[in-house]
């Protein structure tokens, strides 16, 4: 079966008072696609729309050749017919059923129940817990039962809403590895919604950044993390040193924090912000931006130095352990190599929304 035949495609326009979600996504079967964004940007709503628990105002949702939703053709497949494995943030295990019965709840007809339960108990490292009720399980065990339940139903699409958020840090690492073992190789479109960047880096092959109900950027994980399209996306991706630019003077960016030269042939007029990767700058009392060191933390392989610029903007710099370690309160200068400075627009346009969402247009495209 080709990837085209089983991938998930959706053009969605959904709104409720004070919020609008408007996007166009394509999720291939191979690998995991992560969706990140600030709280309230519509990540969980998108999963609910794909699962059929909410209804878009316009658009269509298609899994391979099967149309799940099409406003123009008045198609709206019920959630139970979409075969979606949806893992809720708080797992939503059936409290009156034990682990085995929770896992068996969505088993397709014809599947040997005992064999399937034993298989998923073993794969999710839940041996010995079959008879326990959810209230007698730890957070990590509940998460694995919920994942086993979703996978045992042999879903056509897997949707995971913050699957690791309710477990502690040490357990989260182990669960990510387990998740990769049992999920990543399955040939079904998989969407992971998270606000934890480590989840994205470790688990996702692709990432989409959702801001204010729009898909602002998407692509391979490493590429998106390395080249955010604007300052808002950069913030979502955990970039620290974003300095607003008030004016461009020839090849120099100026702001309340000072000025920095740029290695550009032409000033980037659309850039409103410059980003300074924390690994680039070095302390140099002779030249660069005046700073005051606020705090220094030993991060193992390097020192993280938190500074304040002249306008009290915060700046984070990573210094190699071999470099002299500054002390808090030190007033010095920061030399920022021009080639490391990245100009960014404050806000870019959303990714092209494929069509104007009129029913007529949709009908023509999807006869």
């Amino acid at each position, binding site marked *: 079966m080709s990837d085209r035949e089983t991938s998930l495609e959706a053009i969605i326009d959904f709104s409720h008072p004070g919020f609008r979600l408007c996007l166009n996504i394509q999720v291939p079967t191979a690998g995991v696609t992560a969706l990140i964004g600030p709280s309230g940007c519509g990540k969980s709503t998108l999963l609910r729309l794909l699962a059929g628990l909410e209804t878009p105002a316009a658009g269509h949702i298609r899994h391979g050749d099967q149309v799940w939703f099409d406003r123009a053709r008045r198609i709206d497949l019920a*959630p139970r017919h979409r075969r979606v494995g949806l893992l809720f943030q708080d797992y939503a295990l059936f409290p009156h059923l034990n682990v085995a019965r929770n896992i068996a709840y*969505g088993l397709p007809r014809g599947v040997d129940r005992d064999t399937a339960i034993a298989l998923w108990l073993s794969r999710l490292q839940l041996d010995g817990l079959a008879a326990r009720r959810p209230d007698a399980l730890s957070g990590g065990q509940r998460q694995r039962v919920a994942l086993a339940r979703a996978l045992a139903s042999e879903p056509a699409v897997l949707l995971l809403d913050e699957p690791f958020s309710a477990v502690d840090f040490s357990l989260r690492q182990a669960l990510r590895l387990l998740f990769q073992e049992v999920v990543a190789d399955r040939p079904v479109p998989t969407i992971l919604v998270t606000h934890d960047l480590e989840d994205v880096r470790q688990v996702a092959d692709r990432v989409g950044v959702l801001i204010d109900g729009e898909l602002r950027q998407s692509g391979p994980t490493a590429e998106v993390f390395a080249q955010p399209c604007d300052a808002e996306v950069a913030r979502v991706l955990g970039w620290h040193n974003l300095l607003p630019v008030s004016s461009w003077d020839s090849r120099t960016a100026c702001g309340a924090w000072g000025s920095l030269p740029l290695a550009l042939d032409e000033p980037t007029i659309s850039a409103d912000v410059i980003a300074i990767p924390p690994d680039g700058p070095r302390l140099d009392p002779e030249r660069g931006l005046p700073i005051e060191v606020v705090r220094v933390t030993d991060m193992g392989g390097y020192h993280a130095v938190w500074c304040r610029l002249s306008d009290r903007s915060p700046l984070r710099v990573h210094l190699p352990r071999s470099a002299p370690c500054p002390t808090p309160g030190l007033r010095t200068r920061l030399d920022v190599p021009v080639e490391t400075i990245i100009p960014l627009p404050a806000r870019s346009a959303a990714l092209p929304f494929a069509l104007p969402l009129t029913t007529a247009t949709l009908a023509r495209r999807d006869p």
Partner: protein
Amino acid sequence: MSLLDCAPTALLLSLQVAGVVLVLFLVAGIALGYALSQPFPLRGLLDALVSLPLVFPPIAIGFFLLMLCGRHGAIGGPLHEWLGWDLVFSFPALVLAAFIAGLPLVVKPIQSAIEGQARELIEVSCTLGKGRWETLFLVVIPVIRRHIAAGLTLGVGRSFGEVGITLMLGGNILGSTETLSLAIYNRVLDGNFDCATRLSVLLGVLSLSLFMLLRRLGRL
């Protein structure tokens, strides 16, 4: 003077009415609570109708029902004409009165529980391939059983104590449609306070026993 001498048929009649409305509450209460927790057209109207007995005077509801179900009413007229059956002043009228009075007390806790703790579980069940009925029996009822028990306790308790609607629809006919509550009312009017006291204690014990029983069932 024994209790039987005070109201020979009232206790049995009240128990019979309570038994029938318990079954009706179980079916209609869960069905309406489940339906009202889902979005559908005219949900607000149905919700208002179910909740009406909580805010509308029972005697007035009884009067309107009497007009509707009487021999010349919109419902009672056709029943009399086509089936030769009179609803008012009969056992079914007592059941209808108790049912309408207690229904919101059954539906509201169930609706609230479904909208709260069961909503996400219903959604999970649907994504796992189950339909509405399977979800109702496999998830909703087991998960909210304590709320169902609480609703039934309140509803049947209310039906034991119902006077206003019962008086209008049942007619308070001695030996025929005189329930325990009406018997107390009648004995007080007769000045027989001794009987009224005995019947009141009996009604209290009955309601309390029912409360204990259903609470125990809800814990299972």
